C-alpha cells in the first residue's frame, strides 16, 4: 500500500495530466456532434458517405447505422481517445517498470523488505486504478449528457467508458509483457509503440477490407468489437478482460525468468566503434542519431499513410459532404489543399513532440552531471544547450523532409487533382517553423527557468487542441490562429502568405537567443 502511494506520488503529474486530458476530450466533444448536421437528411447522407469512405474507415473504423450523434462521437472521438489512451498506457507502464529499475527506485523498494513480486504487483495495481479512473471518468462525463444529445444512453456511455478503461489496461498488460522481453528500457518503449502501430494497421486492414475476425487481434479494435451506442456487445469487454488477465499472468511468469534491469533478450553491450566528435553539436547529433532515425521512420510512415488515404476524403469533399471532425479539418477551400493541410498538421504534431523531447534531453543531461563533464573539457557554458537546440531544429527538418518527399512521391498515384505532389510536400515541410518554435520555447524554459521546463508541452497541447478540435468546438478564428499549426499557406498558389511562418521563425530565433543568454546567467543544476 505504501509502495502504491509512493508510486502515485512520483508520477502524480503525468497521471493527472493524461487523465484530465483524456476525460476532457471525451466529455467535452460530445455536444459538438449534435450541432454538426442540422437536418436528419443531411446526417443520413453524411453517414452513408462516411461508411463508404476508405480513408475515414481506415482512420476511425466503420460508422454504425444510423449514424446518430452518439455513434459519430464514439466513432471519431472514440478512435482518437483509444489511440491516446494506448500511448499513455505504453509510456506509463514502461516508466512504472523498466524505467524505475534503471533509476534504482525499485531496487530501493526491494531492499526495504518488500517481496520480489511487490514492484510488479504495485505497478499492476496502479495501472488498474488508472484504468478504472479513465473508465469512470469517460463513462460519467459522456453519460451525464444523455437526454441532451441524440443517442447518448446510460448503457452506451458505460460501454464507452469500459472500452476506454479496458483499452488502457489491455495495452498496459501487453506492454508489461514486452517490458519483460526487451533488452533495455528504450527498446521496451519502442517495442510498445511498434506494437501499437501494428495494432492500428491490423484494425485498419480489418475495417477497410471488412475482415471483422481480424479485429479480435488488435487491442485498438476493442471499441469496434464492443460498439458503444450500437450493438453494445458486453461480452467483448469480458473477452478483453480475459485476455488482459492472461497477458498479466504471462508477464508475471516472464518476470521470474529475467534479471533485474535486463530483459529476456540479451542486449548487444559491446562494440569497438570509435567516436569522432570535436564540438558540442557533433556530440549532440551523435547522441540523438537513433531518436532522429526512429522518429523519421515513424512520422514518414504515418504521414505517407495519411497522404495515401486521402483520395476518398478529397473526392467526398469535392461533393461538399464531409462533416464532423474530418470536415472541420479540411475546411471549405480547395479539397486537395484542405486535406494536405490536415495531414500536415498531424505531421506537425508528431515532429513538435520530437522537437520538445529532443531539447528536454539537455536538461536530463544537466541534472545527471553530463553537462558538467562537457563543460569541464573547456567548452563554453552556452554550448550544450545551443548544440541540442541546433540538433532538434535540424532533426525536425530531416523528419519533415523525408516525410514530405515520401508523401509527395506516393500521393499523386492515389489522389487526382492539381499540384498534389507540391501540396503534399509543402504542407508537410511547412510545419518546420512550428517545430523550430517549439524547440526554441523549450530551450528558453531550460535556459532561464529550468524548473518550469514541463511548460514546454503547453503550446503543443493548446496548439494541437486548437488545430484538431477548434472548429468542432466553435473556437473563433482569431483565437485558433494563435495556435502554432495554422500558419502553413497553400504553396501551390501564387502569392502564398508566408507571414505566419516568418513570424514563427522570428519568435523561435528570439527564444533561442534568450535561452542561450539565460543559460549564461544561471548555475549549472546539480543533483
Amino acid at each position, binding site marked *: 500500500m505504501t509502495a502504491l502511494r509512493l508510486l502515485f506520488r512520483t508520477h502524480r503529474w503525468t497521471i493527472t495530466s493524461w487523465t484530465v486530458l483524456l476525460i476532457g476530450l471525451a466529455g467535452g466533444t460530445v455536444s459538438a456532434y449534435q450541432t454538426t448536421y442540422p437536418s436528419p437528411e443531411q446526417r443520413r447522407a453524411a453517414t452513408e458517405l462516411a461508411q463508404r469512405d476508405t480513408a475515414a474507415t481506415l482512420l476511425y473504423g466503420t460508422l454504425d447505422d444510423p449514424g446518430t450523434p452518439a455513434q459519430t462521437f464514439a466513432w471519431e472521438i472514440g478512435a482518437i481517445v483509444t489511440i491516446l489512451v494506448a500511448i499513455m498506457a505504453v509510456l506509463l507502464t514502461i516508466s512504472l517498470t523498466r524505467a524505475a529499475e534503471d533509476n534504482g527506485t525499485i531496487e530501493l523498494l526491494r531492499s526495504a523488505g518488500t517481496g520480489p513480486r511487490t514492484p510488479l504487483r504495485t505497478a499492476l495495481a496502479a495501472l488498474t486504478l488508472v484504468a478504472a479512473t479513465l473508465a469512470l471518468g469517460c463513462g460519467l462525463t459522456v453519460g451525464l449528457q444523455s437526454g441532451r444529445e441524440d443517442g447518448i444512453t446510460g448503457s452506451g456511455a458505460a460501454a464507452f467508458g469500459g472500452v476506454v478503461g479496458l483499452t488502457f489496461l489491455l495495452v498496459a498488460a501487453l506492454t508489461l509483457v514486452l517490458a519483460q522481453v526487451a533488452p*533495455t528500457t528504450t527498446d521496451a518503449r519502442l517495442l510498445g509503440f511498434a506494437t501499437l502501430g501494428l495494432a492500428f494497421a491490423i484494425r485498419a486492414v480489418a475495417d477497410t477490407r471488412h475482415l471483422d475476425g481480424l479485429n479480435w487481434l488488435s487491442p485498438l479494435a476493442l471499441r469496434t468489437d464492443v460498439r458503444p451506442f450500437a450493438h453494445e456487445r458486453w461480452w467483448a469487454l469480458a473477452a478483453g478482460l480475459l485476455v488482459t488477465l492472461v497477458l498479466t499472468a504471462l508477464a508475471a511468469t516472464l518476470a521470474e525468468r529475467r534479471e533485474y534491469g535486463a530483459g529476456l533478450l540479451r542486449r548487444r*553491450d*559491446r*562494440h*569497438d*566503434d*570509435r*567516436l*569522432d*566528435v*570535436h*564540438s*558540442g553539436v*557533433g*556530440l549532440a547529433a551523435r*547522441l540523438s542519431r*537513433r531518436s532522429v532515425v526512429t522518429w523519421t521512420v515513424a512520422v514518414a510512415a504515418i504521414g505517407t499513410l495519411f497522404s495515401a488515404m486521402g483520395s476518398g476524403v478529397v473526392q467526398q469533399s469535392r461533393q461538399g459532404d464531409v462533416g464532423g471532425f474530418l470536415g472541420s479539418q479540411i475546411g471549405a477551400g480547395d479539397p486537395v489543399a484542405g486535406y494536405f493541410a490536415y495531414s500536415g498538421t498531424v505531421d506537425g504534431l508528431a515532429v513538435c513532440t520530437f522537437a520538445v523531447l529532443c531539447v528536454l534531453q539537455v536538461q536530463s543531461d544537466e541534472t*545527471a*552531471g*553530463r553537462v*558538467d*563533464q*562537457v*563543460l*569541464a*573539457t*573547456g*567548452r*563554453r*557554458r552556452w554550448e550544450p544547450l545551443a548544440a541540442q537546440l541546433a540538433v532538434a531544429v535540424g532533426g525536425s527538418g530531416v523528419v519533415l523532409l523525408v516525410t514530405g518527399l515520401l508523401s509527395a512521391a506516393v500521393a499523386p498515384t492515389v489522389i487526382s487533382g492539381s499540384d498534389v505532389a507540391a501540396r503534399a510536400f509543402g504542407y508537410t515541410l511547412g510545419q518546420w517553423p512550428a517545430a523550430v518554435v517549439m524547440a526554441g520555447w523549450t530551450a528558453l524554459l531550460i535556459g532561464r527557468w529550468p524548473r518550469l521546463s514541463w511548460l514546454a508541452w503547453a503550446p503543443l497541447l493548446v496548439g494541437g487542441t486548437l488545430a484538431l478540435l477548434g472548429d468542432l468546438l466553435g473556437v473563433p478564428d482569431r483565437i485558433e490562429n494563435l495556435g502554432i499549426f495554422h500558419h502553413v499557406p497553400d504553396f501551390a498558389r501564387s502569392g502564398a502568405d508566408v507571414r505566419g511562418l516568418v513570424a514563427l521563425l522570428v519568435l523561435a530565433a528570439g527564444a533561442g537567443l534568450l535561452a542561450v543568454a539565460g543559460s549564461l546567467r544561471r*548555475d*549549472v543544476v*546539480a*543533483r
Partner: protein
Amino acid sequence: MQDNLAVEVEHLVKRFGSFAAVDGLDLTVRTGEVHGFLGPNGAGKSTTIRVLLGLYRATAGRVRVLGLDPARQAAEITRRISYVPGEVNLWPNLTGQQVLDALGGLRGHRDLDAERRLVAEFALDPSKLVRTYSKGNRQKVILVAAFAARTELLVLDEPTSGLDPLMEELFRRCVREATAAGRTVLLSSHILAEAEALCESLTIIKDGRLVESGRLAEMRHLAASDVSARLSDGLRSAVVERLRSLGFSHPDPADDEIRLSVPRDQVPAVLGLLAEARAQDITCTPARLEDLFLRHYEVAAR
C-alpha cells in the same frame, strides 16, 4: 595574484536562497602540490569545487583559478583542468572508449598513448557500453580521461569512492606521477588515509567555513599525542598528583591504566614522569589526521 598559486579563494560565499552552502571560505592551493580538501558531508566541498569550475557563480568573494576568474573565463580555465566528480554519470549508449573519444575530442587535445596505458592499468574494458558499467568502472573512465589529458590542474571530488583497494593504490600512484610531472592536484576526500598518504597540505571545512588549513606536517605538530600507561598500585596516587601539577586534571586515581591526550611539547615531560614511576606498557601514539579531523567533527555533532 601570485604565480605560484593554482587556486586562490578569498571569502567565498555561495548562497542558495537563504542557505549559505559556503560562507566566507578561504582556500589556497600552491602550484605543484597535492592539496587535501576535507570536511563532513554537506560541508560545502562540492559547492566550492563547482564554483572553481565556473559551474556555479559565487555570491561573493574573490576566486582565481590558474590566475583566471571562473565567473568570466570558465572555458579558458576548464581547458587546462581535469575534473573528476564524486558521482560519475556518463552517456549510457556510448562505450567507455567512445566516452574517452568524446571528452578528448571536445577538449581538442589528448594523449592517446597515456590513455591506452591507463586503460590497461585500470583494467578497464573500453568496448563495453557505459550502461553496463558499475559505479567503479564509470569512475575509471573519468579517471583515465583526467590523468591522460594534458592539463595543469586536477580537481578530484571524492574520486575513489567506487574503487577497490587495488585500484586505490593505482590511483595514488597516478596522483604522484601527476605531481612529478608538475601538475597540481586538489583532492576532496573522505578517506583520511588517502589524504594522509598523498597530501602535502590540507584545508578542513565545516558548514561552509574554514576550520583549519596548512601543511600537514605543521598541523600534526599542533595536535596532541595519545599516551597510555599502566601504574602499580603504590605509586598511582603520587603520579596522578604530579600529572595534575603539569595540568592534566582528569586521570582517575582508581584506574590502573591511564590515558592522556598530551600536547606535543609536553610529551617528553609526561613520558619522563611515567618512566621515573616505573610505569608499564607505556605507549605514545603521534597524532593522526583522523584525530585532527574528528576533533572538529565532534564539535559539530554537539
